[in-house]
């Protein structure tokens, strides 16, 4: 249903991935589910739900346009991926990465999407990976193509440092310097997670046999710290956890939030094996700074992912302070879409069926409530 609000609500069809993977809903079913939840915008992964990708026929585009009309929704964003490591012993060159970027821009144009979500180099942190993603040099080359096609390069900031981080600003400067306002930053609420989500705990318990009580105790310490307005004493909490004699699986599940907890002998995290691990290189900025950065940059943001992993019995997102996040966006003058991006499915589906449709429905309702529309 289309509206005239400055802040519009959408759904990334990624939210329905299990329904798609297990053939319960096809792409039209997913679009119908999003429209039924009250959304007016649709974000799509060509790599997941456009069966003809990368060579999409006009006939398929016609079907897409018909669905947009039938369900009274707008295409909002197409997701770009930076698959540089195509072979085990060879990577794509920068020229080839550029060409792939052009493929996504051209498909977005045909789909009527005004933006592509770009998986840029600083997507997860400043030095995340041992291979380069779509970096500044490639984005500099993509920008004129994006401008010509009137497609926004929406750089999703999936980092703990948020949209105010110094290392993201060069892209804003690039748009200003070239006079081509077709590159900008996209916020993702994962930046604002203040504790382990219950979805992560369900996953760790179901897939590795980690101990739920110990993980819940650590989560409770994180929550107390966030709502108490102080920084959690990681060493003291790790010492308390040690007294509970955690299993190896529990230790691994706690590694991210308690880096000083003793790891099982010989354990190397998948990120460290990859040569990355950049996520932990800087201390996480304070939440006060993150909210204030979000408000300060809100009017310049080009898109927002309403990330969530679980919703509690009160209809609230269980690990993020949605009221604070929404206040920052509204006060800062954000204009554009916020799309539900449910990522609890891939955590909780190890424990059984995860009802994505119900999660998205509740999330859209929560967002409407926070915006004073319900």
């Amino acid at each position, binding site marked *: 249903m289309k509206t005239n609000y400055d802040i519009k609500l959408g759904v990334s069809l990624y939210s329905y991935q299990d329904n798609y993977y297990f053939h319960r809903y096809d792409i039209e079913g997913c679009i119908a589910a999003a429209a039924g939840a009250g959304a007016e915008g649709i974000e799509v992964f060509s790599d*997941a*739900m456009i069966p003809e990708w*990368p060579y999409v026929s006009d006939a398929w585009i016609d079907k897409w346009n018909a669905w947009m009309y039938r369900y009274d929704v707008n295409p909002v964003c197409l997701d770009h991926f930076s*698959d540089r490591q195509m*072979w*085990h*012993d060879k990577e794509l060159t920068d020229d080839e990465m550029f060409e792939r970027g052009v493929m996504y821009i051209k498909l977005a144009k045909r789909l009527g999407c005004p933006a592509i979500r770009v*998986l840029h180099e600083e997507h997860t942190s400043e030095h995340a990976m041992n291979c380069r993603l779509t970096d500044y040099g490639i984005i500099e080359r993509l920008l004129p193509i994006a401008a010509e096609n009137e497609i926004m390069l929406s750089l999703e900031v999936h980092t703990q440092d948020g949209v105010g981080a110094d290392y993201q600003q060069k892209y804003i400067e690039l748009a200003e310097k070239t006079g081509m306002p077709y590159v900008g930053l996209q916020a993702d609420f994962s930046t604002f997670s203040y504790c382990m989500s219950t979805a992560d705990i369900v996953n760790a318990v179901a897939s590795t046999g980690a101990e739920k009580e110990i993980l819940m105790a650590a989560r409770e310490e994180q929550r107390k710290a966030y709502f108490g307005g102080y920084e959690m004493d990681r060493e003291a909490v790790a010492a308390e956890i040690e007294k509970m004699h955690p299993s190896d699986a529990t230790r691994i599940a706690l590694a991210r939030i308690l880096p000083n907890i003793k790891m099982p002998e010989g354990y190397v995290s998948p990120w460290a094996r990859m040569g990355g691990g950049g996520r932990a290189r800087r201390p996480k900025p304070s939440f006060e700074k993150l909210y204030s950065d979000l408000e300060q940059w809100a009017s310049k943001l080009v898109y927002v992912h309403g990330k969530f992993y679980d919703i509690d019995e009160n209809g609230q997102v269980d690990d993020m302070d949605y009221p604070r996040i929404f206040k920052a966006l509204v006060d800062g003058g954000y204009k554009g879409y916020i799309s539900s991006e449910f990522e609890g499915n891939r955590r909780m589906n190890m424990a059984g069926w995860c009802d994505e449709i119900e999660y998205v429905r509740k999330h859209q309702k929560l967002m409407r409530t926070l915006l004073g529309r319900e």
Partner: protein
Amino acid sequence: MYDKHILSDAGARSVWENGKKYGYQFNLTINYYRGLPLCCVDQITMIIDGEQVPYEQMYVQHRGREYAYLDILKSDFPTDFYWLFGEYLTVVVKNGKGIEQGIHHCKLTLGTRRSYTPTMVSVCEKDVTFA
């Protein structure tokens, strides 16, 4: 991701020609939240009743075409043959004799390379009925 589901119960059977079994097949789904080009497959290792299926007997069928498994691992294999999200990838094992009809204990290891997360290796161990 999807570790428990990457080896399908559907479609596992011997394959026949001229009234004789010449091999068998089983279906995989991807261990990721989107599709990937076939060149991003890092590893398909299948152990059936304790014995590893020889890689050189394995063929991958995808959208009406067939590739030797060892060929999809080669550098410069095309980047635009997408194994779609949720779509079956059929592995045909040409062992010259098929597989005995009935339940077999299978252990599948599937590795796929991604762009911005570590290569993920998923293991699925289960009993599968081959027709």
